[in-house]
């Protein structure tokens, strides 16, 4: 088995020659050092301060409980005042509780990340193993010729139509519901599926909060069933969502008739030379 890269290599403990590499190394190692420092504090309750100057003369520091406090003690500037002792203990306890929460949160996010990484592996493996590539359209685009591309394009455009129809069916089913302002129960119907949020969680992180706001801008007037013009898609807030960009059928007044933003008429609609390629009775 040929290795793609050499893997972890031993490096000499001398100043790095390549400027760019040096900068990158600095960033990575500094982050790692701070991580280790943070862990030491959490695990063992030690006090620590780490001060690092970057190649660009900027200073980075990490300190627990905080940089100045530890430095002062080291320099013997402020001997601890006995009267302040209980205050210090209380604030320390509170601080520790906060830190513990944050640590738990970080652990959770890291685990989620690991799960996603595994999922990527699985998906890529699945694609590799999939059905001996008997479908030519699954090959990379660069390997297809012009006629294949055109045929593929036709097929895909038809698929797009059906998918859009499905989505609009969905949308129509939802629209009659009462207005969405402040509603949380609908936030999983459009756009990205999120399995986590079933209730409004007051502790929403920024990502979920943004997503809910985007979904809830589906303003729907209770008395007027027509969808306001600027809300154009059953797929979520088009304007702000990166994921949905470019895929927006436009609504007329009557939600049953919609026109598609199509850049050009599909070529296949004009073909007459070839026999019908796609299934009987197809459109």
């Amino acid at each position, binding site marked *: 088995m040929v290795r793609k890269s050499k893997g972890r290599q031993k490096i000499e403990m001398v100043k790095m020659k390549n400027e760019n590499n040096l900068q990158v190394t600095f960033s990575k190692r500094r982050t790692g050092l701070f991580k280790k420092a943070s862990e030491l504090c959490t695990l063992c309750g030690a006090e620590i301060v780490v001060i690092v100057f970057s190649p660009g003369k900027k200073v980075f520091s990490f300190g627990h409980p905080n940089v100045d406090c530890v430095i002062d003690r080291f320099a013997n500037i402020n001997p601890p005042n006995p009267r302040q002792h209980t205050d210090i203990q209380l604030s320390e306890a509170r601080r520790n509780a906060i830190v513990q929460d944050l640590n738990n949160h970080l652990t959770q996010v890291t685990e989620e990340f690991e799960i*996603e990484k595994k999922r990527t592996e699985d998906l890529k493996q699945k694609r590799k193993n999939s059905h001996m590539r008997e479908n030519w359209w699954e090959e990379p685009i660069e390997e297809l010729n012009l006629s294949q591309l055109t045929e593929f394009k036709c097929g895909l455009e038809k698929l797009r139509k059906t998918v859009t129809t499905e989505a609009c069916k969905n949308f129509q089913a939802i629209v009659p519901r009462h207005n969405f302002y402040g509603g949380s129960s609908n936030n999983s119907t459009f756009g990205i599926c999120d399995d986590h949020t079933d209730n409004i969680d007051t502790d929403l992180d920024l*990502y979920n909060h943004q997503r809910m706001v985007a979904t809830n801008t589906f303003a729907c007037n209770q008395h007027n069933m027509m969808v306001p013009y600027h809300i154009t898609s059953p797929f979520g807030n088009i304007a702000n969502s990166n994921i949905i960009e470019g895929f927006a059928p436009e609504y007329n007044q009557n939600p049953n008739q919609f026109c598609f933003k199509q850049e050009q008429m599909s070529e296949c609609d004009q073909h007459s030379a070839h026999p019908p390629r796609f299934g009987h009775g197809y459109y």
Partner: protein
Amino acid sequence: MTRQKVKMAFIENESSRKATYKKRKRGILKKANELATLCGVPVGVIIDSPYDLTPEVWPSREDMDNVLSQLQRLPVMDRTKKMLNQESYLKQSISKASETCKKLTKENKELEMKEVMFDCLSGKTSPSRIEKNDLGACGNVIEQYLRNLNRRIEILSKNDGASSSSVHVVASTSVAMPIVELGSSSTAFCDMIRQQQIQSNMNQNVGSLDLNQQQW
């Protein structure tokens, strides 16, 4: 031999805590040394705990004093801009990790939708069977793919046969794409198509493909 995952919380057991402290302290100092050497930058570390009589200072008291005076010389803004404590550091880490995770989730969704798209095209499934929440993402993947297709078509059309004959053609195009009608079951149809598929990976000259010779 995989290492045991350590729970990120204060170690209750006194002796384990002490042992961990000693090991990790040594590790941190080692890492600090490597950073300072590899990047040729000033680094100063102070570690203090109930287990040490005096605080551990690295590289040395004098060097630490130098670092500190260098620090003091900087204007307050520069000094405190990148100053972190556990709370701020952890918050920063969490948001970075969340960002990365979000990105990965999005990419995975796209990969998954690509599979769904291919399955629809080959008749394994149909749009009516797609999860309602996924329709948007699926639509977007289709849109993206179409954009790429159009771009590629444009390139090939511009070159107009001159370079397209050198394009490596995969399999044979005497196969139609069985597109599934809404709600219809097309297994029989797809099987028929599949029987006619030629599995070959050969270089073909575009001109030799006769698209009119399809057998139905």
